[in-house]
């Protein structure tokens, strides 16, 4: 259950004319999300936390994650945003760690998928 129906949609978009579509999308996702994660990491180091900014980053991250169907990662994003809105720094930090773990797992799974 790491990927949801959206991923299936992507698979369906792949055809003989676009044989590597899914792989391309995922590669793009990695690139973009790495950048975002880095930004979030940096932002989380600032004290006090800038929740609005973090929320913004996370919104973006959530958007891309959902585009490829990364269900669990997306769930963590939502949680993170909730904490942001509540101004809960501790919660944000924790959730982010969790998010990174999910993200790492996802990458591994996808790599296996593409083999």
């Amino acid at each position, binding site marked *: 259950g790491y990927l949801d129906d959206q991923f299936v949609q992507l698979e369906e978009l792949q055809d003989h004319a676009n044989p590597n579509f899914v792989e391309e999308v995922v590669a*793009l996702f990695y690139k973009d999300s790495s950048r975002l994660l880095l930004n979030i990491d940096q932002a989380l180091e600032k004290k006090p936390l800038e929740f609005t900014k973090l929320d*913004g980053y996370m*919104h973006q991250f959530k*958007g*891309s994650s959902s585009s490829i169907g990364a269900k669990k990662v997306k769930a963590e994003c939502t949680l993170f945003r909730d904490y942001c809105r509540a101004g809960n720094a501790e919660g944000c930090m924790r959730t982010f760690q969790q998010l990174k773990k999910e993200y790492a797992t996802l990458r591994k799974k996808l790599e296996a998928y593409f083999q």
Partner: protein
Amino acid sequence: MNFGRGGKGVGAGSMSAAVYGGVSDQFPAGLRVLVVDDDPTCLMILERMLRACRYEVTKCNRAEIALNLLRQNKNGFDVVISDVHMPDMDGFKLLEHIGLEMDLPVIMMSADDGKQVVMKGITHGACDYLIKPVRIEALKNIWQHVVRKKKNEWKDLDPLGSGVEDGDRPQKVSDDADYTSSANEDNWKGTKKRKDGEEEVEERDETSTLKKPRVVWSVELHQQFVAAVNQLGVDKAVPKKILELMNVPGLTRENVASHLQKYRLYLKRICSAQQQQNGLNLAPQDAPYVPLSSLNGFDYQAVAAAGQLQPQSLATLQMAGLGRSGSKSGIGITNVDQKNLFCFENPKSRYGDGRHQQQIANAGNQPNFLHGIPTTMEPRQLAHFQQSSQSFGNLNIQVNTHATNCTSLMMPMAQQQPRGAILNEVAAGNVSRIASQLNPSNGNAGGLVRSVVAENCRGQVYNPVVTQGSSIAVKHPAEFSCSSFPLASTPRIPSIMSKMPTQDDINSRLKAAGGFVPSYDIFSELQQHKSQDWALPSVGLNFDGSQNTHPVQGNFDVSPSVLVNQGISSDQKSEANRNASPAGSVTLLPGQANGQTINQRQSINQHLIGLHVESLPVPKVDRDQNLNSQHTLYSEQFGQDDLMAAILKQQQFGLGAVEPEFDFDGFPMDNLRV
């Protein structure tokens, strides 16, 4: 994919296709879609999906680039899909721009599915709102928006629109090789009528002089439209009568009908925006006006319209606004007074109630822009505004009677303004009020102006009211923080400040008008500031006539600033600002700023500030140099009122709050409290 259009684009055949916007016999294949999203993953997926639907896709990751593409290639796209959250420009702003400038259907999308955001999309005129992740099924149907829009246009242009027979089609289109009505017929069975109409139209286009199916609502045309609507009364305005009143050859009832629809939407948007912002009920009298705040770009139009100041500008603004069907007038006015435009509607209804105006005048919610105005715009916050707006609205009505157009515009404006929102309204309302004042009863000529302003705020093209020359002089410039934008029909926003028709002008106008709604002057001012597309009618600016009735004179200056603030704040917040142009936001300038629309806001604000200072002492002339130039039409009341409103607003907003750039603190208007 072969699109009749895509490939050919030439010759008769392509004409049809071209006319249709690329609808070829293989429609919806070949639909030209522009996708804008800063997320590359999403962009890639969308592109792939759209291509899978056989559409012609162009993708873009920045709003600015997208706008440039659209501008360079006005007829190059059929539909735009845009993300809401983008780093360089807010999606709603883009939406407004597109609606105003190109009048293309725009679909918003976002991972955010909150009701507020979706509502925002709707009020800004988005044709549809998709929640991410977007599924291909959702994209398969987007062609419906294109057809729908075309259909409306066709109807406008082509009287036969609905009556065309299939049989005719084939023959007629036979000229257009590509068109192949037969193909169309197959595809469009369902939308046959439309198609027929379209085809017919196309045929006609080719044969007749009607080249484009779309009617281009120029500023002037829009002003005429608004004038007619105001004359009839917003609620009572029916396309047929409007058409008669306008008396424009070649214009069909359908054209008017669809334009009216957009106008109404705009008004509503303004009103609701204002309402939201203000939280005040619009009115004891006009609740509808409130939306001012939402008017962002549109307000200018409204203002413009009202003030007719700059017929062109207003028209432009409004058109844009209308074209957008609401949306965000990112154009510049944006925050400010979009609502105003809609608010006009309210006033319109009020229009009939001359009494209301009076009442409103008394209410004087507005920050005392209009000194003389009975309405006494108190600095109170919008709440007052609303009331005042109402009164203004009434005023406008009264005034309008003279001006007819102006007041209608004004009215709504007055009502709406909850302060931020009200600005627009105020502008409008002021105008109206002023107008009404001018008129015998209130003596607030300024009211008129305001209305105008308010209208402008809306951004919608309401040039209308003011243009009539009604001295909408919405005095409430101060109040109109929102509306200020609209005032200036001429987009000249930045100049708005200057424009704010020097109160003198306004005063004089008012006098002269005797209830004329100078509002346009204000608009012109606004427009000036606006420089954006908004042709804010410089309506209010005409302040030539020193309005004697309104003490607004001093206030006018305020308005400009108010407007400016709004504009500015709006910019900043973009949407948020609009409505409430929180303190300081331009809203002050109902009269003035309107034209300024947001972009200009900054400049406007500055102007405002300047205006404030200047305007206060000098009711008119000083205010708006621009204004005067712009609209000499309405000057009277408008300038003054607007200025006043603006000033008042500023004060209210605590000028300080307004944009720091303005340094409003100079404003003496304490009453402004918005």
